[in-house]
């Protein structure tokens, strides 16, 4: 019965208060089984990042409740929160800004261990190397400055930093959207490997349907803070029901469809203003 990791009930979060201030996250509910992956698609400003931050307790929710393995995230003591952080980690949206640029890779990877006062220096080294290995980075990368790394490498360091703590669930905010196509594939593969090797649970946020397709078992479509459609990945992505989901799926540019269209000499028309 308790195979659910996250249970999110009627979660609401607003930044602005006033008559016409719409909440960034509006009445969102979902349940995530342990080791399962949940994908959230939605346009910019839909509230995806805000939702993730509520899930890790970085932002307090205004209404509703988030529990992780039965524990209410909003009511954790400092101690509980520290323990929670070791089990649930969030990899932030932009690899160019989410790591301290002045640190070396080794320093960045040591930080979580130092914060949680884990392990001897030997231990730490081993854990760091293991994490590095899992994201397919060479050991000698450790001595390099974050500043000198490319986006793909940075994103992998960011993932490794979350892995050092051996979490059970990883929250990924746009894990590849800042990366070049060729690097994108590398990072996605790393994430797939990790899930298989470690049995990690993912909550993945992206506006790119392909990313969701590759990483998620279950998918929610988010629009203006709300989940407008929720279901299995195949159902939502290949036979969407909600109008907005359909639009999303239909307009995503793809080589494949271009070739089809080219053959048919027509393109999908999009109406309406932005």
């Amino acid at each position, binding site marked *: 019965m308790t195979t659910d990791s996250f249970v999110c009930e009627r979660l609401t979060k607003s930044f602005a208060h006033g008559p016409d201030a719409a909440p960034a996250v509006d009445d969102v509910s979902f349940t995530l089984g342990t080791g399962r992956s949940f994908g959230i698609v939605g346009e910019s400003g839909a509230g995806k990042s805000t939702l993730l931050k509520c899930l890790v307790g*970085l932002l307090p929710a205004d209404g509703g409740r988030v529990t992780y393995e039965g524990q209410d995230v909003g009511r954790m003591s400092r101690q509980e929160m520290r323990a929670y952080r070791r089990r649930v980690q969030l990899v932030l949206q932009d690899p160019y800004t989410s790591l301290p640029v002045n640190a070396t890779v080794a320093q960045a990877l040591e930080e979580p261990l130092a914060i949680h006062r884990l392990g001897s220096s030997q231990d730490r080294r081993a854990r760091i190397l293991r994490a590095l290995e899992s994201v397919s980075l060479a050991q000698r990368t450790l001595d390099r400055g974050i500043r000198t790394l490319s986006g793909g490498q940075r994103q992998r360091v960011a993932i490794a930093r979350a892995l050092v703590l051996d979490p059970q669930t990883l929250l990924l905010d746009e894990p590849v959207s800042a990366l070049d196509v060729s690097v994108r594939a590398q990072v996605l593969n790393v994430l797939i490997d990790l899930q298989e090797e470690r049995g990690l649970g993912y909550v993945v946020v992206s506006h790119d349907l392909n990313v969701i397709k590759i990483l998620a078992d279950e998918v929610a479509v988010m629009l203006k803070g709300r989940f407008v459609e929720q279901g299995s990945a195949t159902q939502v992505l290949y036979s969407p029901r909600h109008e907005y989901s359909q639009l999303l799926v239909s307009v995503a540019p793809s080589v494949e469809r271009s070739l089809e269209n080219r053959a048919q000499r027509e393109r999908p028309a999009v109406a309406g203003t932005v």
Partner: protein
Amino acid sequence: MTADVGTRAPATSPAGTTAPRRHPVVRWWRRQSALLLTGYGVVLATAALAFLVPLLAPEDAGRVDPGRAYLPPLSDGHLLGTDQIGRDLLLRVADGLRASLLISGSAVAAAICIGLLVGLVAGYYGGAVETVLMRLTDVQMALPFIVLAVMILSIAEPSYVSLTLVLCLAVWPAYARAVRSSTRLEKDANYVQGIKILGGGNLRVLRKYLLPAALAPLAVLAVLDMAALILFEATLGFLGIGSPPDSPSLGSIMADGKQFITSAWWISVIPGLVTFAAILGINLVGVALRERKGQS
């Protein structure tokens, strides 16, 4: 599939045989702007004057001997001549320069400390704490500096300490503001959020990340302020309320000598030029550093 990123470190990559690798010093040299190099040159020269000359001095800088007063520059044994009571001008200027540099340097250092403390706390915690601290800096900024300086120095015995304090008062609010605004930006920065997600607490974030982040942009400010403070200090000396007579700084040497501008020009013109050079050199470095920061 392990991407071997290590071999791509640009500095060690032997890619291509186009240009032979130059000596690191040469490469460093070529990277610097002419402005910066000129600045370094002037600063080095003034620093040598301030710190090296006294070491080589044959006599105490304060040696008074009216019997040899008013010797023009290039006189025997007195490269820059002597002043109105026969002190060697070279030694005296060196002394004054050292005092000026030390005073303004320690004032800037003190201001940075205060500014960091106030700015970090205000910027990070926000709210009422921020309001109070920022109003305090506003108050300090609204107080006309010279009035404050003249007031304090005419009362407290003029000494290096009181001068340093006064100069520090003049600049700390600027640091507090700069630190506060950088901290306000930085505390919401992604990487700080990242540390919090890892479980890092406020103190850790402040100490390990926000402090260094706030410090970095202060470097240029500090260099430029150092120049500004030498100027301030010279101004105070000029008004006759600068450093104590037995350990003069450039401003007071200049003020003492200014009455001889027509009869023995060197007594004031030389310290004037040295003051100008010290300020200019530091400003050159500051502006060049600012320019380089701006480009990156």
